[in-house]
């Protein structure tokens, strides 16, 4: 199991201050987020919960640097993300965020190895090194013998593990998982959650977006979102 990158950065990984996100639907303004403030430290395992329409997905997009807030500041590892342009955001996503999606989002025509290689491709890493790193990442999720398989030749759990390998291959600051077990049966879902537990032990910072209590219970901290605001932020001492 890999450990998170040695980091000289001491502050919180995420420092979000009064985040607002407003969508314009014709003449109407919809406030998906209404002033959200929180901090996440290095090595934390945080679950973000909330019913659909609560603003949970909007918050995930902001945390994942896929979108920028309408107002407020979002600082990721000391960098002010909320003022970045498209290409700077792309570079931040590439280096700092590892995404795990509910629907896996693997490229169907590419092998497991090539899927895991993709973030390295966009980081401009030479081919030999890419293949080496991608192979290591796949071995870490116990798929060392499946590198040449295409997604449709893998089970759901295996696909999600390929996605986790892809998320970790750049050694990001945070692993951002959006309903990672939503498309898996219970047993396979538990396997994935066990993998997350191991990653947490290895020092990774994990943010888990879910609506399932059981899944959220794997995290040590749970942030509840309702109507675009933080309803509660609980830490469990385990």
């Amino acid at each position, binding site marked *: 199991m890999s450990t998170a990158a040695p980091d000289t950065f001491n502050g919180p990984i995420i420092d979000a201050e009064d985040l607002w996100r407003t969508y314009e639907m014709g003449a109407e303004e919809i406030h998906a987020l209404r002033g959200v403030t929180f901090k996440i430290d290095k090595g934390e395992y945080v679950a973000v919960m909330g019913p659909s329409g609560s603003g949970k997905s909007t918050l995930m997009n902001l945390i994942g640097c896929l979108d920028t807030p309408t107002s407020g500041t979002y600082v990721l590892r000391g960098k002010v993300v909320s003022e970045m342009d498209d290409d700077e955001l792309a570079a931040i996503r590439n280096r700092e965020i590892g995404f795990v999606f509910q629907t896996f989002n693997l*490229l169907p*025509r590419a092998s497991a190895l090539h899927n895991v290689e*993709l973030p390295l491709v966009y980081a401009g890493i030479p081919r030999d090194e890419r293949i080496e790193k991608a192979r290591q990442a796949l071995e870490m999720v116990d798929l060392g013998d499946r590198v040449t398989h295409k997604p449709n030749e893998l089970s759901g759990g295996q696909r999600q593990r390929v996605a986790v390998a892809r998320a970790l291959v750049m050694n990001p600051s945070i692993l951002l998982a959006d309903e990672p077990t939503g498309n898996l049966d219970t047993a396979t879902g538990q396997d994935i959650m066990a993998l997350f537990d191991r990653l947490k032990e290895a020092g990774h910072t994990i943010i888990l977006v879910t609506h399932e209590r059981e899944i959220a219970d794997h995290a040590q901290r749970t942030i509840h979102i309702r109507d675009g605001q933080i309803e509660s932020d609980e830490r469990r001492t385990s």
Partner: protein
Amino acid sequence: MPFTEAIRTALQSLRTNKLRSFLTVLGILIGVSSVIAVVAITEGLDAYISNQVLALGSRSFRLQKQPDIITSHEEWKEMMKRKRIELDDLEAVRKACTQCAEVGASVGTGGSAKRGRTIHKDVRIIGITENISRIGAVRELAQGRHLVQQDIDQAGRVGVVGMDLVDGLFGSVDPMGKEIDVDGNKIRIVGVAEPKGAIFGQSQDNFIWIPITTFQKLYGSRRSISIQAEAVSMERFEDAQDQVRLAMRNRRHLTYLKDDDFSIETGESIMDLWQTATRGIYVVTIVVTAISLLIGGIVVMNIMLVSVTERIQEIGVRKALGARRGDILRQFLVESVVLSGFGGLLGVLGAAGIALGLGSVIGSMMSLDFSAPVRPWAVGLALGVSSVVGLVAGLYPASRAAALDPVEALRNE
């Protein structure tokens, strides 16, 4: 995203949609293969024609009543008014042209030759001066002797025949010294010309040469003769023509302002005409190609738009993983260029097939030595142009893909 990676991705998508890719590039394929094939075939014909023209002799020219090729009815009517060229003109030209190595003349008609009951029709009967076989393309003999000055002076009833006549009238019998009946007149064969085969299916060996004086006795002297001259050297070629022209203008008393009322034909004038014709072919080809490439480009653009729409989610994923706008733009541009470049490549192969096939068909149909070479520059140009078409056609779809919002793209199902 490095280029090699973009090309890898492009080839993969090409492989995944084989039939679609092929149909997409059909327009480009047709455009490219037609341009290469036409270039190859015209070049083949070019080479063939200039070979034939060279065979006419590069230092020789002809003085005739009218040009070889008349392009309008008005011109033809004008030509009919011209005075014929006669043996007296030959003498005058021979005297005036100091830069001519040889000056001779010929005049011909169609007729038939008989031996016993065997008739050979459509024979070219040509009256010549004795030096004709030395002007322009030298014609060697397979047997016997050429006509000599004495034959001309005496208007002897002798002739040199082409191989077709020998084959048609004598078979395996030796023709030397035998008499044949040419349009009712007895002619004794003194020589047989070496066979030359056919040009455009027209036999070059179906003729009989007789002295020009004999010809005029048998067929009258009302036909205009063709004076043939050979300059002493390539450098004196123009001078020789000028001397002949001047001599003729003096004889015809043409004042300074009047045009020539005779024609001087060189190998070059045939080449010029041929090149004017091929230029027309090239222009038509370029227009056809431009149209098919335009349509091909539109089809490529359309399919690239489809491809972008199909892969919106993939674009979202790539952006989430760190692809910048430029990365996505490059990926789809490369795919578009590879797609149409692939069409160009198929077009080159198609053209090679067409050129080879047509070349051998033309060759065997006209029984001539003909090849249509596929030129590297034509191939390079075709591939270059098809790649540019791909680049232009891919620009809009690729920039649409690059501009997609990652959140929207990821949400797309």
